[in-house]
């Protein structure tokens, strides 16, 4: 199997990387968990401190791998390893966090080379309850990075929304429709 057939899902801890992968994966995502000893324990029952892995199986048997990066910054040494051979990255931003725009900065900067070499999409979650910052603010922040990327409000529990993220991501890389 060609190891280069992969996409990355990244974002802050608890944003829903595992959930997003599960929404479109043809296998149940493999998740390695470890107990959180910091404030993350207050946010969710479990936290991912290693890789999430999912897979989309094409009709011709080819497999597209979906990797969720560890969210905590103390594991950011793994981010560079994971970018090798990746076809693009889905950056998920949780709008309920104290500073979503600063979160965006972290992932845009750390995955900047991958973004420039391939493509990326920004998925902003929990906007139904947390409407600010709005999408315009995210575009302004991306503009400061000299980037134009799709920014989509999404519910990553919904397959349709995650599918839309993937379609937008692929369009930033290869817009051809056929």
């Amino acid at each position: 199997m060609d190891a280069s057939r992969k996409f990355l899902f990244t974002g802050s801890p608890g944003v829903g990387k595992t959930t997003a992968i599960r929404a479109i994966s043809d296998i149940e995502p493999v998740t390695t968990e470890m107990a959180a000893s910091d404030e993350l324990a207050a946010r969710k029952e479990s936290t991912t401190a290693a890789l999430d892995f999912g897979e989309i199986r094409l009709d011709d048997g080819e497999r597209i791998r979906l990797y969720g990066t560890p969210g905590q910054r103390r594991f950011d040494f793994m981010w560079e390893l994971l970018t090798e051979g990746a076809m693009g990255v889905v950056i998920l931003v949780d709008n309920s966090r104290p500073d979503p725009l600063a979160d965006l900065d972290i992932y845009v900067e750390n995955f900047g080379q991958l973004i420039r070499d391939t493509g990326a999409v920004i998925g902003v979650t929990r906007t139904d309850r947390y409407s600010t910052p709005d999408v315009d603010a995210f575009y302004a922040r991306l503009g400061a990075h000299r980037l134009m990327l799709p920014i989509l409000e999404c519910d990553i529990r919904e397959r349709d929304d995650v599918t839309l993220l993937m379609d937008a991501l692929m369009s930033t890389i290869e817009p051809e429709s056929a």
Partner: protein
Amino acid sequence: MTRRTLRSVNLSRREQMELDLLLSLVGEQEGDQWQLVNRIGADAAIVDADAETAGQSIVEARRAEEVVITLSQSGGDGEGLCLARPLRSQALVQVLERALQRAAAGGRGEASAYRLRRWPGTDMLRSEWRLTRVCGALGRGPQTMSDIATRTSIEESELRDLLQVLTGAGCVERTAGSARTRERASWTPPSGLFHRLRARLGRA
């Protein structure tokens, strides 16, 4: 005085009434008398570009050889056939004049480049998957319609409609500057891979 017909698509009842009133006032001043109709095949169609089905409505109007005018909150870039809410008589007159010119010229003369200001929202992308292709192509920098058609493999006649939707939604604007593209550093996906993946995800 020449009689022209204008079909409204997805406008609210109130907006239809406002449009009807404006058309009657405009007709008293100008050479053409526009009448609001419901039947497809009018001289022009005014489409609510904020509606989820805007893309589809525009395609249907074009197939009926109606000149398409879009109405939206943002109103686009002030060029072309885009109107901003609320309707104003002067803007309506100008757009109707351009619509007649466009009809006479066969809709040609679009050598200027298009620039992406932002991607449309998820509702619009859900309703018309080709919008992601157009925005993806424009993400590399301002491009002419011909360039976009080449990159996306979308026919120019359909691409015109899509660009009008995007312009009406404030996502795209025309630029007088020369088209330039930012080529990606080194990587292209294996041939056909993304098409197969999109098909698998139901987005092809």
